[in-house]
């Protein structure tokens, strides 16, 4: 399965990364090299094999569904490039 320029443009859009026309060209080659290489996994018979979900055999801890922490609005906003009235601020969105 090799990918073309349109596919890379589509992935880049999904990943929200701007890629210029000239970068697209080189990216296609680089990604195909990597994808060709990982495709050797096709040789492995995985019939009836469970996909790994956790490397350590353990159960996720449970706790009561209660608020135990919070109230950090100012700290949360401290590193924001732009904040207003206690909110993150972004460019105007009108659909």
């Amino acid at each position: 399965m090799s990918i073309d320029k349109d596919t890379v443009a589509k992935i880049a859009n999904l990943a929200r990364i701007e890629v210029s026309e000239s970068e697209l060209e080189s990216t296609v080659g680089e990604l195909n090299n990597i994808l060709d290489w990982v495709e050797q996994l096709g040789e492995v018979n995985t019939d009836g094999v469970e996909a790994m979900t956790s490397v350590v055999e353990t159960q996720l801890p449970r706790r009561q569904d209660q608020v135990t922490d919070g109230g950090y609005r100012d700290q949360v906003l401290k590193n924001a490039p732009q904040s207003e009235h206690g909110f993150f601020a972004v460019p105007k969105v009108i659909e």
Partner: protein
Amino acid sequence: MTEFTKLTLADARDGLHKGDFTSRELTEAHLNAIEDASELNCYVTVTADKALEMADQADAMIKAGDAKGVTGIPIGIKDLYCTKGVHSQTCSHILDGFKPEYESTVTSNLWADGAVMLGKTNQDEFAMGSSNENSHYGPVKNPWRATGSDKDTVPGGSSGGSAASVAADISIAATGTDTGGSIRQPASFAGLVGLKPTYGRCSRWGMIAFASSLDQAGPLTKSVRDAAIMIESMAGYDPKDSTSYDTPVPNYEAALGGDVRGLKVGIPKEYRVDGMPEEIEKLWQQGIDWLKDAGAEIVDISLPHTKYALPTYYIVAPAECSSNLARYDGVKYGLRVTGDSLDDMYKKTRAAGFGDEVKRRILIGTYVLSAGYYDAYYLKAQKVRTLIANDFKAAYSKCDVILTPTAPSAAFNLGDKVDDPLAMYLNDVFTVPASLAGLPGISIPAGLSAEGLPLGLQLLGQAFGEEQLLNVADVLETAADFKAKPTKWWGDAS
């Protein structure tokens, strides 16, 4: 006078406890050495004032009789760890100006025990790389150079700044993180001990995520004993990381007994890869002989899916990275590049903020998770990952630990592999399988290449078998008796 920067952590601790010197003296000596070694580019920020303040507190702890193993020890912290109010950017442009309002659990543990932070160390951006050439802050120079050469070599990666800082004696020890080999491979390149503990042994809370099912904290140190002391402070259960494991932290240093008689050491035949340099092969055989001489039994084992570990890793890790790195959007922290619309702002910010390797992995990850390809790539890789983990389970029914080389070569020259991502990925051929299985591994400096560069041997252990792993590593370290140090060419030597 004691040459403070040459001390191992264990010796520095003993000196501090006996009152031979103070943490302030030790810390000042390291801060001076850091200034002298600035051209190595090990640190992206030096926290000199904070270090001295922490040193004074440590001296008070020691006086009060509250000293722990790391009390008063000046260490470097990989930039990937969130440290309150201090540069924490995982060496990425996209986190420009980010200063966390909180402290990672691992560093909190170290500070609670009185360790002293010298600064934040350089690394590959988001821990993606094997040479430290992917940092927004420029590459790190390995203090080691080939005999008679004036060419710079890479310190390995991604914990390259941490490794180079310990090798150059500008930190006594340093924290690293290991996703596919990012502690063990730089340890091998810089002549150090590097320990990646079992997944879940250390809390990941406050570590900037790359691939969450693989990321694990660990130390880079001058000796196995030092690694035991560091990991004892760093490790522990943390309710804030649901994947951290709720089991007591043993006294790791006490596990260093030196007796490996009757222990079964597995040698996996699949690690004899094509084109492996003869000197690596020889060193491996030497390691086998050392452990045999110490009374261990050598067992041939097979890990049949070894050759699929790297391709599996390069699906799983990018998939997790593309998801984890979705949070960098120019809204919550770090860099923002303005655009015509919200979407345009996201795209421009992420295009400007991420480096080439990070973008490459986000794109690969996005592709393998996208509709229509998820089963063929991601699900397939997670199944192969199960087979890789099963290989280890089967092997450990025949042996207690596994001995392999750490990396397929010694440190290479700066710039040599930067244009060939696949060649760079192959650096982790021996470290990635255990990462995928969540198992602990340690690299021990075992010899020098023909060119005079350090080479490491890797020991892999069973889940939460760090005590045994450290004990065997200690025996190997004693047998190898690796005393070589890089010849100083930087700073006041030039």
